[in-house]
């Protein structure tokens, strides 16, 4: 069984969450015949080639037909399988969105819809392949659990948890092989329970996915300027760990959310919606992708352009805290 340690974390990080996912699923699914992997002709893009070779009876290629893939996954789930159905974020979360709604939502089937390459990490492939709006759509589906792992180690934790989790789930993979690991040692992971990575009293940064690492970088830079930030890894976007928001309101004078998703409907919206009716609130800065289809380039280039890197996050938080 795989374990998170400095050496593994370094090696996995080179693959990025998308390439590593298939390795993690293979590690979890071997000797568990009830776990199936489905792909819509993107097996090699999601690291599932080895899975297919090692567990041919547990791999189904649905062809380039995501809507049908979700329905077939639901039929398999109805008969007792736990199905990980994978495709690029817009194809599974939006193109097949109504199938997800009917089968995973309305019928609450035990299917894990895995969005590989969410956010903007498909780089030059462009906005057709980006997952900008998926969180917004998926989290409005009743009964859906949504997990956005921070790095490869957390992809492993998520897949392990999902293997034992009965019910529909949307797993959103962001980041690529240029992202340094967040975790180099084992840690406690529980769906629905966020992880405090750093303690500080000046601001609470709540991040998910690829932005957890960038937020940690920002926290380091803020510390150099004399500001102490709490950093929360909100890996589960739904159900939201609201206790941590309550605590942030009590302990820090401001909240900043950071996500690789449109500023409409994602993690920032989750936090804002929760906080709005509370008697005691704190100012909240929502950092994410703009409400537009952005000019495309390499992943790191676009993150820089859109201010989703440590330096830019630091500057935004500094300005925000100055008021």
């Amino acid at each position, binding site marked *: 069984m795989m374990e998170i340690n400095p050496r593994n974390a370094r090696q996995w990080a080179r693959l990025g969450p998308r390439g590593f996912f298939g390795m993690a699923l293979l590690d979890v699914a071997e000797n568990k015949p009830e776990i199936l992997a489905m792909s819509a002709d993107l097996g090699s893009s999601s690291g599932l080639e080895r899975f297919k070779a090692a567990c041919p009876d547990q791999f189904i290629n649905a062809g380039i037909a995501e809507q049908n893939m979700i*329905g077939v996954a639901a039929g398999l789930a109805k008969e007792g399988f736990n199905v990980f159905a994978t495709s690029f974020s817009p194809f599974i979360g939006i193109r097949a969105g109504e199938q997800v709604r009917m089968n995973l939502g309305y019928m609450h089937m035990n299917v894990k819809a895995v969005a590989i390459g969410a956010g903007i990490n498909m780089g030059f492939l462009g906005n057709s392949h980006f997952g900008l709006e998926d969180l917004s759509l998926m989290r409005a589906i009743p009964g859906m659990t949504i997990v956005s792992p921070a790095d490869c180690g957390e992809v492993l934790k998520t897949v392990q948890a999902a293997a034992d989790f009965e019910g529909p789930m949307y797993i959103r993979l962001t980041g690529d092989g240029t992202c340094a690991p967040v975790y180099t040692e084992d840690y406690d992971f529980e769906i629905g329970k966020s992880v405090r990575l750093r303690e500080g009293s000046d601001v609470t940064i709540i991040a998910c996915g690829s932005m957890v690492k960038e937020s940690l970088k920002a926290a380091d830079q803020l510390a150099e300027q004399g500001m102490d930030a709490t950093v929360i890894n909100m890996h589960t976007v739904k159900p939201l760990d609201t206790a941590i928001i309550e605590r942030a309101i009590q302990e820090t004078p401001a909240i900043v959310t950071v996500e690789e998703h449109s500023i409409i409907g994602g993690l920032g919206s989750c936090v804002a919606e929760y906080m709005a009716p509370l008697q005691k609130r704190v100012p909240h800065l929502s950092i994410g992708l703009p409400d537009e289809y952005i000019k495309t380039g390499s992943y790191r280039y676009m993150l820089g352009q859109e201010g989703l890197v440590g330096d830019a996050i630091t500057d935004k938080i500094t300005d925000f805290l100055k008021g």
Partner: protein
Amino acid sequence: MKRNDIENMALEMRRKILDISFECGHSTHIGGALSMVEVMSVLYGQVLKFDPSNPRWPDRDRFILSKGHGVLGYYPALLMAGIISEEIFSTFLQDGTDLIAHPVMNMDLGIESSNGSLGQGLSMAVGIALAAKKQNKDYKTYTLISDGGANEGSIWEAAMLAAHLKLGNLTMIVDYNRMQNDGSGKDIIDVENMSERFKAFGWHIIDVDGHDVDQILDALQDGSEVDTPKAIIAHTVKGKGVPFMENQKDWHHNRLTKVNYDLALETLGKESEAVSAT
């Protein structure tokens, strides 16, 4: 069941459809229910394996109503098969009921899936049939789609995969009444040559008169292809059995008034005499 019993079941289902449509006081999808009656009576009267006292019986055959608006051809079949009670049946379209205008998955009532969004049931049926193969189970999977529902691209995605996976344990029946919500298929989107279409997708095709129980039974029991999914193209008439509804788009979804209800029952009465005379 003997042929005569299946025909009587079909006749009784039509009566139930008219009764409940009138009694519920709402518009119902009555035309497409009347077109599927013989198919459903052969399935639930003869072909499907199930245990009325245990709708969750693991070895039961699976039936998915892909044409979800066809509940009035489904609930009466479940009633006559003894899976749901008269008491439950009578709650159709009453506030708080489990029996609404599209199926809501409810294993206690023998309803295998939630439908209503067209073109999705075949995908689930493919998944269930594939599960049976993976788990070495003998049950068969059946789904009923409409020709209008086959406007949806997802039907053809599923058709491709079913043939590729050689799902010989899967049977799809197409209620080929050539009508849909806005009228005749030929005026909306061409649904001609349905058999050739599915044949080209690699399915074993059997064309039947969808109101002839012998032809339907023979087609359902045909076991000549073991590695090929079967498509039974049931040539039907929308509104079948009630002349003023037949092939009338107004009866896709409409409310049955007392005058029309009485008129429809009178027609069925005549048919009833014809059936008992055979």
